[in-house]
C-alpha cells in the first residue's frame, strides 16, 4: 500500500512538472536567460512554478507537521544541518552550471525518459553516475572539505 501511494505521489509530482512546462528544457533555459529580457525572449514561467510550489508546501508542511508521526509510521525526517559550509556553496554551484548547460534538473530529467529519447537517457545515466560519485566521495574517511564539528 505504501509503495502504491508513493507511486501516486511521484505521479502528481511528474504531472506538476509536465503541466508547469518544466519537463521542457527550452522553457527552463529561457527562464535562466536574463540576457533575453531586452529582446522579449525571457520566459518567467519557472518563477510561477516555484511560487505555486512554495506557497502550497509552506502551508502544507505547517499543517501536516502537527501530526505526531507520518501516516505510514516512523518519524518525520527533517534536515537538521544549519551550517553554511563549503559544500552548500560548491554543490549547488556545480549543479547550476550543469542545469544551465542542458536545462535539466533531476525531476524533469526523469519525465524526459519517456518522451525525450536517447538524449534524455544519456543525461539521466550521466546524472546517476555523478550522484553516485558525489556520495562515494562524501563517504570517504578522508574528507576533502572542512567539516563542521
Amino acid at each position: 500500500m505504501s509503495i502504491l501511494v508513493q507511486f501516486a505521489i511521484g505521479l502528481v509530482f511528474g504531472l506538476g512538472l509536465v503541466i508547469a512546462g518544466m519537463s521542457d528544457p527550452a522553457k527552463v533555459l529561457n527562464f535562466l536567460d536574463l540576457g533575453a529580457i531586452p529582446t522579449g525572449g525571457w520566459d518567467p514561467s519557472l518563477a510561477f512554478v516555484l511560487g505555486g510550489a512554495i506557497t502550497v508546501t509552506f502551508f502544507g508542511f505547517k499543517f501536516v507537521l502537527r501530526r505526531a508521526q507520518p501516516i505510514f509510521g516512523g518519524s518525520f525526517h527533517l534536515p537538521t544541518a544549519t551550517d553554511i559550509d563549503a559544500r552548500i556553496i560548491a554543490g549547488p554551484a556545480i549543479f547550476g552550471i550543469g542545469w544551465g548547460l542542458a536545462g535539466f534538473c533531476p525531476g524533469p530529467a526523469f519525465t524526459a525518459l519517456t518522451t525525450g529519447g536517447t538524449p534524455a537517457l544519456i543525461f539521466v545515466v550521466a546524472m546517476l553516475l555523478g550522484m553516485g560519485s558525489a556520495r562515494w566521495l562524501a563517504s570517504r574517511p578522508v574528507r576533502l572539505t572542512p567539516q563542521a564539528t
Partner: protein
Amino acid sequence: MTATDFTPVASLIGGALIGASAVMLMVAKGRIAGVSGIAVRLLPPYADKELAGRLAFILGIIVAPLVVLLATGTAPVPTIEGSTALLALAGLLVGFGSVWGNGCTSGHGVCGLSRLSVRSLVATLTFMATAMANVFLTRHLL
C-alpha cells in the same frame, strides 16, 4: 535556442501540484520530496529498506508524460539541444552537484525554502546564479 510562451497560469497550477506532492510525501512517509536525494538512494549501498518506495516515487515521475498522453491524446515533447558529450557533461555536473550540495531544485528550492531554511536559500541563490551566468555566457558571450 527555442522560443517558449510565458504560461503563468499553467505554471502556477503545475507548481501547486509539485507542492501538493511534497506535502503528501511528508504526511505519508515523513520525507522531503527532494528528487536528487531520492534518486541517489536508488543506487547501492542501501542504508534502509525504503528502496521500493523510492523506486515507486521516481517511476511515478517517469510515467507522468504517458498519463498526460493517455488523458489528452498528446504528450509534450521536450526540446533537448546539445551534443551527446554536452548532455553527458551536464548530467554529470547536475548529478554530482545536487548530491554534493544535498539537494536540487525540489529539495532546496521548493521544500527547503518552504521550511525557511537559510542553507536552502544559500543553495538556491547559488545554483540560480551559476545557471544564469552559464546561460548568459553560452548564449550571449560565446
